[in-house]
C-alpha cells in the first residue's frame, strides 16, 4: 500500500512539468488556433537555459530565481517567434502554420547544438531539497513533493488569469471570434503575441522545473511533444483543467507502467488515449470543434485536371529518360534515384490524402515504416521469400491505415493531425520497445531482395515499375469518380453529403489507400537498404514527407513528386554541412511566408501570369 502511494506521488510529481508544457500548448491553440509543434523546443530551451542560469546564480535563491528567469527568457523567445514567423500566416491554412512551426523546431535544434553542444547535461539538484522524506516508510524525493505542491498554484494562477481578469476575458473572446474583438478596438496582434509568449514561458518553466529530476539533451523536444499531444488530446484542446487531469492520468499510469509493464510504457499512453477518444472524440473536457476556421491562401484554386497532350508527352519523355539512364550513369547515381523514387511515392501517397482529401495527416511515416517493417518481419522471422514479403508490405500498411483511420477520420483539422501523429508514435513505440519481435533500435537487418534483383540495375527497374506505377495509379484515382467525391468532401462536406456522398467513408477508404501506397514505398525501401530501423517511423520521417509535399505545392498534383526530387538532392547536399537543420528550417520558414504555393504552384502562377497577359489581350 505504502509503495503504491509512493508511486502515485512520483506520478503526480512528473505530471507537474507535463502539465506546464501541455497547458501552454493548449492556451496557444485556444487563442491562435495554431498547434505549435515547436512547443517541445521551448521546453528544451527551458532546460538548457535553466542549467546555464543555475550554474551562474548561487544558492537556493539562485536556483528558484533561475527557474523564474528561464520562463521569462523563453517567453521572450516565443514572442519573437510569434512576431516573425506566425504573424504573417495567421490566415493561412493549418498545414502552413504547422510546417512553419516545424521549421522553428529545426532552427532551435541547431541553435541549441551550437550554443550548448551535443552532450547530454545532468540537471543540478535543488539546494535544500536533495534528500528524501519517508512517507509510510517509503522514500519520496523532497523535490517531488515540492513540485506536487507547486502545480495547484500554477493551475489556480492560470485559471484566475483566464476567468477573472480583463486579459482573460479578451483571450476567451478572441478564441471565439478574433475579428470581432478587433472591431471592438482591441489590438489582437498584441493579444496573440502575449498569449504565445505566456504559452512558451510555461513550456520553459516546465523544462527548467524538471531539471533536478532529469536534465537537458537535444532529443527532449521530440520526446516531450508526443506526450504533450496525448495529454492535450485526452484532456480536450483548449481546456486547462482537462490538461491537468490528463497530465496526472498519463504520468501516474507511466510510473505504474514502468514497474509492472516495463516492456510497454510507451504504448500504454496511446492505449489510454485511444480508449478516451472512442468514448469522447474531443477529449475529456473538450468541445466539438467548429469547422471552417481557416481560409484559403490567394485566389480560389482552379480545379486540377489531367495533363494535356504536352504534359503527357513531357512525362513520357521523362519516363523514357529514366528507363535509359542506367546506360549512362554510375551505380551511386542509380541508388540516389532509387531513394528519390521511393520518396516520391511516399510523398505522393501523403499528397493524395492531404491535397486531394484535405486531411492533414501528421503520422504518415507509420505506414511507410509499417510497410517496411511488415516485409522485414516476415523475412527475418519466417524466411518468407522476398516476393511475398514485398507484396505483404502495402497490404499490411493498408490494413494499419484502415485501423488508425477508424479513429482519426471522425475528427478533422488539427485534431485529425494530432491524432495521426499520436498513432504514428504508437507504431514507433512498438517498433522501439517490442524488442522480442522488432529488435528495438538494433533494427532488422539482412533483408535483401531475391537474387534476380540483387544487382543495382534490375532493382532500379523494379523500383521504377512499382514506384512510378504507384504514382500513376494515384493520379488515375484522383481523376476518377472516387477522386471527385473525395475532392467534393474536402471542399464542401455538407454539400457533398447532401448529394449522397458518404464523405467519411470515402475519406476512410482514401486514408487506407494512402497508407497502402506508403507501405508499397516502404516495401521497396526496405529491400533497397537491406534493413529497417525505428527511425523510419519517427515524427521526423513524417515531417520529411510533409515538407516535401509542402515545398512542391499542396494544390498541385506534381507537387509531391517534384518536392521529393528537390529534397532528396538538397538533403544530400545540405547534410554535408554541420548546421544543415538551421538552413533547412530557415528555408522552410521563408517558403511558408514568401512562396506559400510551393515550387510547382509558384512556377505555375508565374507561367500563368506571363500567358495571362496575352489571353487578356485576345479577349
Amino acid at each position, binding site marked *: 500500500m505504502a509503495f503504491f502511494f509512493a508511486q502515485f506521488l512520483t506520478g503526480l510529481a512528473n505530471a507537474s512539468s507535463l502539465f506546464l508544457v501541455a497547458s501552454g500548448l493548449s492556451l496557444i491553440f485556444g487563442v491562435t488556433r495554431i498547434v505549435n509543434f515547436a512547443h517541445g523546443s521551448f521546453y528544451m530551451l527551458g532546460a538548457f537555459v535553466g542549467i546555464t542560469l543555475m550554474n551562474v546564480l548561487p544558492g537556493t535563491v539562485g536556483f528558484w530565481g533561475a527557474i523564474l528567469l528561464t520562463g521569462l527568457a523563453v517567453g521572450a523567445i516565443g514572442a519573437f517567434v510569434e512576431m516573425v514567423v506566425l504573424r504573417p500566416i495567421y490566415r493561412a491554412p493549418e498545414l502552413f502554420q504547422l510546417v512553419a512551426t516545424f521549421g522553428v523546431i529545426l532552427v532551435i535544434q541547431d541553435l541549441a547544438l551550437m550554443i550548448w553542444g551535443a552532450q547530454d547535461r545532468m540537471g543540478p539538484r535543488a539546494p535544500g531539497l536533495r534528500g528524501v522524506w519517508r512517507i509510510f516508510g517509503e522514500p519520496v524525493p523532497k523535490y517531488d513533493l515540492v513540485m506536487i505542491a507547486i502545480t495547484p498554484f500554477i493551475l489556480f494562477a492560470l485559471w484566475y488569469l483566464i476567468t477573472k481578469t480583463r486579459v482573460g476575458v479578451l483571450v476567451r473572446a478572441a478564441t471565439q471570434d478574433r475579428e470581432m474583438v478587433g*472591431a*471592438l478596438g482591441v489590438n489582437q496582434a498584441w493579444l496573440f503575441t502575449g498569449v504565445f509568449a505566456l504559452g512558451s514561458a510555461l513550456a520553459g518553466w516546465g523544462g527548467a522545473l524538471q531539471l533536478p529530476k532529469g536534465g537537458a539533451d537535444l532529443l527532449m523536444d521530440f520526446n516531450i511533444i508526443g506526450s504533450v499531444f496525448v495529454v492535450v488530446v485526452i484532456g480536450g484542446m483548449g481546456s486547462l483543467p482537462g490538461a491537468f487531469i490528463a497530465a496526472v492520468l498519463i504520468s501516474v499510469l507511466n510510473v505504474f507502467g514502468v514497474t509492472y509493464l516495463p516492456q510497454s510504457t510507451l504504448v500504454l499512453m496511446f492505449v489510454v488515449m485511444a480508449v478516451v477518444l472512442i468514448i469522447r472524440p474531443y477529449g475529456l473536457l473538450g468541445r466539438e470543434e467548429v469547422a471552417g476556421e481557416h481560409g484559403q491562401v490567394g485566389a480560389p484554386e482552379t480545379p486540377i485536371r489531367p495533363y494535356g497532350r504536352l504534359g503527357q508527352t513531357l512525362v513520357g519523355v521523362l519516363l523514357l529518360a529514366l528507363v535509359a539512364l542506367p546506360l549512362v550513369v554510375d551505380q551511386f547515381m542509380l541508388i540516389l534515384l532509387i531513394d528519390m523514387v521511393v520518396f516520391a511515392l511516399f510523398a505522393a501517397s501523403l499528397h493524395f490524402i492531404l491535397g486531394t482529401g484535405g486531411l492533414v495527416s501528421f503520422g504518415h511515416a507509420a505506414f511507410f515504416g509499417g510497410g517496411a517493417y511488415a516485409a522485414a518481419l516476415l523475412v527475418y522471422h519466417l524466411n518468407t521469400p522476398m516476393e511475398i514479403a514485398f507484396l505483404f508490405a502495402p497490404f499490411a500498411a493498408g490494413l494499419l491505415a484502415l485501423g488508425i483511420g477508424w479513429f482519426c477520420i471522425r475528427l478533422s483539422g488539427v485534431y485529425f493531425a494530432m491524432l495521426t501523429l499520436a498513432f504514428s508514435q504508437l507504431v514507433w513505440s512498438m517498433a522501439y520497445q517490442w524488442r522480442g519481435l522488432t529488435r528495438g533500435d538494433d533494427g532488422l537487418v539482412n533483408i535483401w531482395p531475391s537474387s534476380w534483383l540483387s544487382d543495382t540495375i534490375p532493382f532500379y527497374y523494379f523500383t521504377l515499375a512499382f514506384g512510378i506505377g504507384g504514382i500513376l495509379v494515384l493520379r488515375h484515382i484522383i481523376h476518377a469518380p472516387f477522386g471527385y467525391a473525395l475532392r467534393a468532401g474536402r471542399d464542401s462536406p455538407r454539400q457533398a453529403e447532401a448529394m449522397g456522398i458518404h464523405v467519411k467513408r470515402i475519406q476512410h477508404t482514401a486514408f487506407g489507400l494512402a497508407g497502402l501506397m506508403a507501405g508499397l514505398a516502404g516495401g521497396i525501401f526496405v529491400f533497397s537498404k537491406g534493413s529497417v530501423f525505428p527511425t523510419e517511423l519517427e515524427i521526423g520521417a513524417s515531417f520529411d514527407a510533409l515538407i516535401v509535399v509542402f515545398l512542391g505545392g499542396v494544390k498541385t498534383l506534381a507537387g509531391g513528386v517534384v518536392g521529393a526530387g528537390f529534397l532528396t538532392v538538397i538533403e544530400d547536399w545540405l547534410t554535408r554541412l554541420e548546421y544543415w537543420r538551421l538552413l533547412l528550417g530557415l528555408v522552410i520558414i521563408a517558403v511558408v511566408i514568401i512562396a506559400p504555393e510551393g515550387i510547382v504552384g509558384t512556377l505555375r502562377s508565374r507561367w500563368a501570369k506571363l500567358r495571362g497577359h496575352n489571353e487578356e489581350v485576345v479577349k
Partner: protein
Amino acid sequence: MLSVEGIHSYYGKAHILNDLSFRIGRGEVVALLGRNGAGKSTTLKSVMQLVRPRSGRVVFQDSDLVGAPAFRVAKSGIGYVPEDRRIFTDLTVMENLEVGRQPRRDGAPVWTVEQLFEIFPNLAERRGNRGKHMSGGEQQMLTIARTLMGNPLLLLLDEPSEGIAPVIVEQMAQTILKLKAEGLTVVISEQNLHFARVVADRAIIIEGGEKKFDGSFAELEAHPEIRDAYLSV
C-alpha cells in the same frame, strides 16, 4: 464627420461596391437602404476596414482610414454592430460588455454598464448568463450594448431589425431614437423601410454597389418610382 469617397470593394474577384460616395454629418441618423446583396453590409464593413476598399478614401474626422487595422478604426471612435450579432456565446453578458469597454472619448456620449442596463433592462436581469443562453432579441440588445461600451462617436448598425420579433423591433426603434437624443451619429443598414423611416433623418439607397438615391424620406415618398425600382421585392 464621415466622408466615403469613391470606394471600390471586392470579395475575391467579385466587385461589390462600385465608386460609392456619401457623407454623414454629426448627429445625423442615416439609413442605408437596398435589397439583399445590394452592398449595404459591405459598405459598413468597408468603413470598418473589415473589408479593405481597393481604391477610394474613407475619411473620418480628417483622417483616411483605408488600410488601417479594424482595431484602430474602432479606437478612432467608430462603433460597429455586425448583422449576425457575433456576441461571444461562451462569455457572460458582463464579460461581453467588458470586451467592448474602451476609455471615454471627448465629444462622445459616455456609457456605463448601469446606464446600458437602464436602456436594455433585459440584459440587467441576465448579467451572469452566457451569451448562448439568450434569445435572438436579447443577443441583438447585447451586441449594441457591447459596442456602446466603447463610447463611440459614430455607430454603424447592420440590419438591427432583422430576425427579431415585431415587439422587439419597436423597442429597438425607441432605443435608436434614444441614442440619437444622446447626440450619437448613427448609420443603419436596413431593408425595412418602415423601420428606417421611424428612426432615420435621411435615406441612401444602394443597388448593385452603386448609390441610386440620397435624400430625405419626404423626397423619397415624392418619387415612388425610386422605391419601386430599388426597394420593392
